[in-house]
């Protein structure tokens, strides 16, 4: 049966018609399946939400709790109407999931956001063979190829050693990037306290509750400028140019994001130390994932769709761009 008969774009977002629910809808709906806790996917105001337990906890922490939340562990299936729904790890952030839908012998996988690199803060992406794959394409151009994250952390630590009288202010998205950067620093042997902006505290606590140990964190608002010399301070990207940052001792401004791969983008953000660390698949990984899931039909959303549609076409896949309106350019990228 034609997939478009049961999975289609509606004004509220992607809708599974026979199941009567939406996936990551951007307007309040009666029933939603939510892939992960980033705010452009997990909006507030839904009546009922199905998601992994960590995602529900994240939604609650962000003030986006639904009236009724139903937790579904990875690998378990539920039936909603005539549709079977299963959540598979997406490797994006804690609790992030792909939604695996089966209806009348056809399987569709909605990936949400995903990455393929190992991440010590969440389970790795699981490729699920399917008839339709709905992929993100945040970094859907061949110029986006993320380097090894350990090398990026090594550059940060080299800079810390080179400028011991300055502090390093690193912009990290509150959910996911922050905790991953902390874990990467720990893995590189950095065992000093890491200073964090108040806006990051809640999510760090939540990650620790879910078993992701982060080592000693200190609030960056207390200590004197003198104490912060030579230290690493993490803050949400929006706080980098804020009044808040003025009291730091001559900070070297860094930003951890896949966008930092392109120099112009990094300079537009006024960043001195761009760190290419991303929670999304890069170009090679997008292409590899398409091969691995083997879907004859591909819908591309969320970013630079055209290049990926072009490449899928060359592979004989029926591909099209799905222009879903509600997603902003990923800050969290």
């Amino acid at each position, binding site marked *: 049966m034609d997939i478009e008969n049961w999975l289609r774009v509606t004004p509220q977002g992607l809708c599974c018609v026979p199941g009567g629910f939406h996936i990551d809808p951007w307007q309040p709906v009666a029933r939603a399946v939510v892939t992960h806790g980033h705010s452009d996917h997990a909006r507030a105001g839904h009546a009922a939400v199905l998601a992994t337990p960590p995602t529900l906890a994240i939604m609650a922490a962000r003030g986006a709790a639904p009236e009724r939340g139903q937790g579904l562990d990875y690998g378990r299936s539920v039936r909603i109407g005539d549709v079977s729904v299963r959540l598979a790890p997406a490797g994006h952030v804690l609790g992030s999931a792909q939604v695996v839908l089966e209806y009348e012998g056809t399987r569709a996988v909605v990936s949400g956001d995903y990455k393929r690199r190992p991440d010590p803060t969440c389970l790795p992406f699981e490729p699920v063979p399917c008839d339709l794959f709905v992929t993100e394409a945040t970094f859907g151009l061949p*110029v986006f190829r993320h380097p090894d994250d350990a090398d990026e952390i090594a550059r940060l630590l080299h800079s810390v050693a*080179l*400028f011991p009288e300055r502090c390093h202010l690193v912009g990290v998205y509150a959910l996911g990037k922050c905790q991953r950067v902390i874990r990467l620093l720990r893995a590189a042997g950095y065992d000093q306290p890491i200073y964090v902006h108040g806006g990051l505290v809640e999510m760090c606590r939540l990650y620790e509750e879910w078993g992701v140990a982060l080592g000693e964190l200190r609030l960056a608002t207390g200590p004197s400028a003198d104490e912060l010399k030579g230290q690493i301070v993490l803050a949400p990207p929006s706080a980098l140019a804020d009044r808040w940052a003025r009291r730091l001792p001559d900070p070297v401004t860094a930003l951890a994001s896949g966008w930092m791969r392109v120099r*112009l983008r*990094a300079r537009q953000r006024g960043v*001195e130390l*761009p760190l290419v660390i991303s929670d999304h698949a890069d170009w090679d990984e997008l292409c590899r994932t398409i091969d691995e899931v083997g879907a004859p039909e591909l819908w591309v959303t969320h970013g630079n769709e055209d*290049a990926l549609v*072009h490449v899928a076409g060359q592979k004989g896949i029926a591909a099209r761009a799905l222009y879903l309106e509600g997603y902003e350019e990923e800050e969290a990228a």
Partner: protein
Amino acid sequence: MMAFARLLDSLVYTGGRNAKLRLMADYFTHAPDPDRGYALAALTGGLDFPNAKPALIRDLAARRVDPVLFAMSYDYVGDLAETVALIWPERPQPAAHVPELGEIVEALRLTPKDGVAGLLEGWLDSLDATGRWALLKLITGGLRVGVSARLAKTAVAEWGGRDAAEIEEVWHGLKPPYAGLFAWAEGLADRPAVEDGATFRPFMLATPLEERDLAGLDPADFAAEWKWDGIRVQVAARGGTRRLFARSGDDVGGAFPDILEAATFDAVIDGELLVVAPDGEPASFNHLQQRLNRKTVTPKMLRDYPAHVRVYDMLFCEGEDLRPLPFAERRARLERWFARPRPRLDLSPLLPFESWDQLAALRDAARQNGIEGLMLKRKDSPYLSGRPKGPWFKWKRDALTVDAVLMYAQRGHGKRSSYYSDYTFGAWSGGALVPVGKAYFGFTDEELLQIDRWVRANTVNRFGPVREVRPGLVFEVAFDSVHASGRHKSGVALRFPRIARIRWDKPAAEADRLEALEALIS
């Protein structure tokens, strides 16, 4: 190569001077010879690879990458070298051998033109994205990482605990990879010898005068003279060697045999190279242009455009270093030196004045040929290298302006690579626009964005990186003077044009006519 690439990459993003110095010092500490020497050469603009051109890089990329994907990517990234560096297919395993900077520079120098593509392809395969970017920047010239030659030399000096002027002094006797210089900076060898002859000595330069500075300055402390509109040069003659240096330290003597012939003295003097009319007064800058950049000089050119040096200062006299002396004393020595006839040289006269107002009036009245403005020099100033703030000021006369219409826009370089930031503008002649000049500075980032948007919305034609736009945007263009020019279709050439204001308010039809510029020809 990777260490050099990381250095360039860090420099691109680093704003502060001290941080840049620190990054360079860190590199000099860790990089071996000859890599660090070639790095210094690259940063000071001393490397040139005529066999490697942007077109070659584009061809290489076209062989490896789907053209549709390349076009989409180039459009997104905005810079050719960066696009190729990022998009180049990555090898699955790390390369067995990653080339070092010295190896690359030496191979490029020795490889004939038809072998360069193969070399480059191999290197692109073995470097990572940052390495590829640095390689492509290096070979296409113009690193544009926000480091001047002077700052790079200062970095070596400070890293070695030396004085930057000491490096300037010997610089022109040195060649990449500067092993002797680094050995000296590290305290392992003596300073490379200054060849005792007609060597280049760093110029002393003036800072622009802000008129509000004048209030704090005492006219009695200063001497004033005209700032002549030619080319600042140094004539060095000693022990049978005679040389004519431009400010860059380049020897331009080949184009001015008449000056060298007249340099029968033993001295190093600082002055302005001019072409003079039969009455002995400076001819327009355009005449000097006729003499510059010529490999061979014909007798006719020597006759029609005779060269002349108007002397400002004296650095050495018969082996004696005068630079530590105060300006007033050097000037007295210079005047005595001119007691004997000095063919093709004359003394730039000092201007008597008692108050700043009096001097300002002199400056405003000066509209004749060859005067760019005034120089103010503290009478007690020694001759220092570089551009120290305080002892010398240049006080340019006010610029002239014209309202011109934007005709073509081109993508910029470096930071501005994704914006249309280089502009050709024209004046009306009959019912058509004729181009009269090009400029690319004078904007805030916000204005740049607005113009960029306007250009994209008003394009009528595209030729590669250039867009032709409909006549609709007027610039107020400031310039120092206008000269007749046979090389420009308009017949005029502007000196130092820069865009002073964007006249969003002004209809293109009301912009200036070519005749307005012709009337200003000096």
